[in-house]
C-alpha cells in the first residue's frame, strides 16, 4: 500500500469502498474463492493500549527495581494433576503446528522457551522429536483432526491442551494448502502428499461439555492423572464457555481472543468472528470467580500480546499467564526487513506478509521448503526468542513493582484505568480520571 496519496481537488476516497475493499472485490471476482491468509485480525480493535496503570505515589508504595523481588513464576494445573507445570515466567508459547511452521522454527520455539523456563505447545499435526527434544516443558494439543495423535506422545507431554477453538476462527477448522503438505508433513498426518487439508472444526467422537467431561477423564486415565488438562477456546461466549470448561473438569483454561493468529483460514473469519482479547478476560474471570475457581483453575490468555505492558494488563485483569504466537514468530524473524527484496518477489513486503499457507516464507519460518527452512538457525532464533521473553518479563515486573506488587499475580483491575469508553466498558475499569465504569455490574 503506497502512502504517497496525492490529494487533488475532486478526488475523494470512499470510506465504505476504500482501496482494500475494492481490491478484495476484484480478487473475489477473478478467483471465485474467499481470501485465505494467516496472521490475526488486522482491523483496529479495542486493545490493551487503551489501558493505563496507576503507578504508586502517595497512597501506595512502589517496590525498588532490581532489588526488591517481584515473583513471576506460576504453577498451572493444581486442580487435579499429580504433576502441575511450573513456569518461571507467566508467558508461554501458544500452539503452532509443525506443518504450518518448519521443523527449525518449532525447534527454535522450544529452545527459546526452555531457556526462559517456560513451556511451548505443539499444534495440529503431532509432536516432532526436535520439538520434544528442545522443550523442557511441552504442552501437547488434542485437536479435532487428531493428525499425528499418538498415545506415546501423549504420555511424553507435560500437559494436554484440548482445543475447542482458536481466537482467529472460533467455530472453524484449520486449513493447510497443498504446497505445504510435503512428504514429512503428509506422513505425520496420514494424508496424500499435496492435498489441501481442511481440518475438522468439531471433535469426531464427542460434542458438548457433557461428553467432554468423559473425554477429559479418558485423557486423564491414559496418562494416569499425571499431567494437567487444558481446555482452549476461542473468545466468543466466554463467560459460558469458561463455566462449562470448569464443569467439564479442566485444570487450566486457555482463552484466545480474536487478535490471535492462525496459519491460514478465511479472512472473513479472522476479521468478523470472536471478541477482542481485552473483552474476553473480564468475562472469563467473572465466570471463574462465580464458581469459586479463580486461581484454582488457572487462566491463560492469548491473542495480540506484544509487550510487557500487555502481559501485566492481562495479569491485572485476572489471567494467571499469557500465551504468545505471532509475537514469538516475529522474535524468531518473521516478516524481517532483511528479506525485503524477497518479499517483493512474492508480491508482498516485509511487515505485511501473511500468506503463511503458501509456504514461501522468505524468513524460513512458515514454510516446508528445505532451502528456505535453512535460513532459520534454530539456535540463534531460539536465543532471540529467549531475549524477547526476558524483555516481556522485565517490563511486566517493572510495571508491577511500580504498582507496589511483589508478585505479578497481585496486579488487580483496580490498578488500571481506561482511555476510551469502549475499553472501560470491556475491561470493566474506570475511564481515566473518573470513577465511572460504563455499564457497571455487567
Amino acid at each position, binding site marked *: 500500500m503506497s502512502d504517497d496519496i496525492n490529494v487533488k481537488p475532486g478526488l475523494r476516497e470512499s470510506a465504505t469502498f476504500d482501496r482494500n475493499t475494492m481490491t478484495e472485490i476484484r480478487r473475489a471476482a477473478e478467483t471465485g474463492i474467499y481470501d485465505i491468509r494467516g496472521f490475526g485480525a488486522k482491523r483496529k480493535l479495542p486493545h490493551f493500549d487503551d489501558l493505563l496503570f496507576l503507578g504508586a505515589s502517595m497512597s501506595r508504595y512502589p517496590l525498588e527495581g532490581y532489588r526488591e523481588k517481584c515473583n513471576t513464576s506460576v504453577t498451572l494445573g493444581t486442580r487435579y494433576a499429580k504433576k502441575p507445570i511450573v513456569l518461571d515466567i507467566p508467558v508461554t508459547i501458544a500452539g503452532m503446528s509443525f506443518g504450518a511452521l518448519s521443523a527449525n522454527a518449532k525447534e527454535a520455539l522450544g529452545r527459546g522457551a526452555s531457556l526462559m523456563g517456560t513451556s511451548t505447545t505443539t499444534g495440529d499435526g503431532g509432536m516432532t522429536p526436535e520439538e520434544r527434544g528442545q522443550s523442557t516443558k511441552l504442552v501437547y494439543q488434542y485437536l479435532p483432526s487428531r493428525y499425528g495423535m499418538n498415545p506415546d506422545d501423549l504420555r511424553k507431554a507435560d500437559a494436554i491442551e484440548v482445543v475447542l477453538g482458536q481466537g482467529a476462527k472460533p467455530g472453524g477448522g484449520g486449513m493447510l494448502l497443498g504446497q505445504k503438505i510435503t512428504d514429512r508433513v503428509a506422513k505425520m498426518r496420514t494424508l496424500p502428499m499435496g492435498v489441501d487439508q481442511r481440518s475438522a472444526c468439531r471433535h469426531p467422537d464427542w*460434542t*458438548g461439555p*457433557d*461428553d467432554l*467431561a468423559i473425554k477429559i477423564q479418558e485423557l486423564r486415565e491414559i496418562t494416569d492423572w499425571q499431567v494437567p488438562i487444558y481446555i482452549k477456546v476461542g473468545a466468543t461466549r466466554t463467560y459460558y464457555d469458561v463455566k*462449562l470448561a470448569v464443569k467439564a473438569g479442566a485444570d487450566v483454561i486457555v482463552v484466545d481472543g480474536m487478535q490471535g493468529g492462525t496459519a491460514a483460514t478465511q479472512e472473513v473469519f479472522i476479521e468478523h468472528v470472536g471478541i477482542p482479547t481485552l473483552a474476553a478476560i473480564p468475562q472469563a474471570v467473572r465466570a471463574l470467580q462465580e464458581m469459586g475457581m479463580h486461581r484454582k483453575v488457572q487462566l491463560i490468555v492469548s491473542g495480540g500480546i506484544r509487550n510487557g505492558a500487555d502481559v501485566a494488563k492481562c495479569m491485572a485483569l485476572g489471567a494467571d499467564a499469557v500465551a504468545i504466537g505471532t509475537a514469538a514468530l516475529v522474535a524468531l524473524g518473521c516478516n524481517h526487513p532483511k528479506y525485503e527484496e524477497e518479499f517483493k518477489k512474492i508480491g508482498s513486503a516485509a511487515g505485511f506478509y501473511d500468506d503463511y499457507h503458501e509456504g514461501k516464507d522468505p524468513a524460513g519460518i512458515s514454510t516446508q521448503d528445505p532451502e528456505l527452512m535453512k535460513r532459520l538457525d534454530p539456535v540463534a532464533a531460539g536465543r532471540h526468542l529467549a531475549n524477547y521473553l526476558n524483555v516481556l518479563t522485565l517490563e511486566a515486573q517493572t510495571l508491577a513493582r511500580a504498582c507496589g506488587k511483589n508478585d505479578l499475580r497481585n496486579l488487580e483491575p483496580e490498578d488500571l484505568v481506561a482511555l476510551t469508553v469502549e475499553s472501560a466498558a470491556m475491561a470493566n475499569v474506570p475511564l481515566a480520571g473518573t470513577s465511572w465504569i460504563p455499564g457497571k455490574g455487567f
Partner: protein
Amino acid sequence: MCGIVGLYLKNKALENQLGELFEPMLIAMTDRGPDSAGFAIYGDEVPEGSIKLTLRHANEDYDWAGLAGKLKHELNVGVEWFNNSKVAIFKIATSDGIAEAFITENAPDVLILSAGQSIEILKEVGLPVNIAKTFNLKGMKGSHIIGHTRMATESAVTMEGSHPFSTGMDLCLVHNGSLSNHNRLRQELQREGIVFETENDSEVAAGYLTWRLKQGDTLNEALTNSLKDLDGFFTFTVGTRDGFAVMRDPIACKPAVMAETDDYVAMASEYQALTTLPGIENAKIWEPEAATIYVWERSSETGVK
C-alpha cells in the same frame, strides 16, 4: 448439556415400582447434569372433566390448603390436593382452562408446572440424588416417567430453567444438546402467544411443540415440523399421556440409547443409566437413528417407529 432418561412400563404389575426402578437411572446421569434435575411422572389419572395441575411456590410453607379452599368455594368444584416439598398436586373437578385462569388470577406467585389428566412435573436445582430424595421419587407409582439432569449452558441455573418443560396437556419435553436459532424462534412464538419463563433454548423447543399442537398438529407432525424449524443439536424425549417419543436431529451427535423387554421400554443418554433395570442383560438394545421419530404408546404395545 444434559442427561436424559425415560422409562415406560408395558407390564402393569411393575407400576408400583416405577419410582424405585427410575431413581437409579436419574442418579446415573449426574455427571452429565449436576446443576439441576427433574422428572415428569404419569399415572394416578383424574377422570375426564377433571384436571390435575402441578403447582409450585418458592416458599415451602405456602398455604396450599387456603388456595384449595378458595378454589372449592369460589368455583364451586371438588378439589383434592397434596403437597410434596415446594410443589403441590391439585386435582380439580373442572376443565383446565377455568382452574388455570383462576390460579393465575388469584395466586399469581404460584407457578403452574404442568396440566393434564395424568402428568406431574417435579424439578429443582441441585444434584439428582438430592432431588430424588426431596420428592421421594423412590416411593412413586405410575405408568411411565421421563427425567433430565442438566448441565446449564447459556441460561441460568434455576428451577424454571430445569427440565422437563410442559408443552401442553399431559405433554412435556426434555432435551440434550444445544439449539442455535432459539432466540429468533422465541420471538416468533411469543407473537403467537406462547409464554416463556426463561432464556433456555429447550424451553423454546417445548414452546414450539406447544404451538404446533395448538395449530392442530399431531405429536408426530409437530416433531416432524420441528426438524425443519429447529437448528442445532438435539436429542428430545417427549412425555405423552400414553407413553413417550424420542427424536434426534439429522446430525445426531448427542447420544441416545434404547432398551426394550416384555416389561418395559427405556431410553437414556448413556447405557450406564439402564444397567439397574431388571432383565437388561437380555433386552433389545439399540440407538435411535437421526431425524427419525420413535413413539411408544399404550395403544401400540410394541414399539413402533
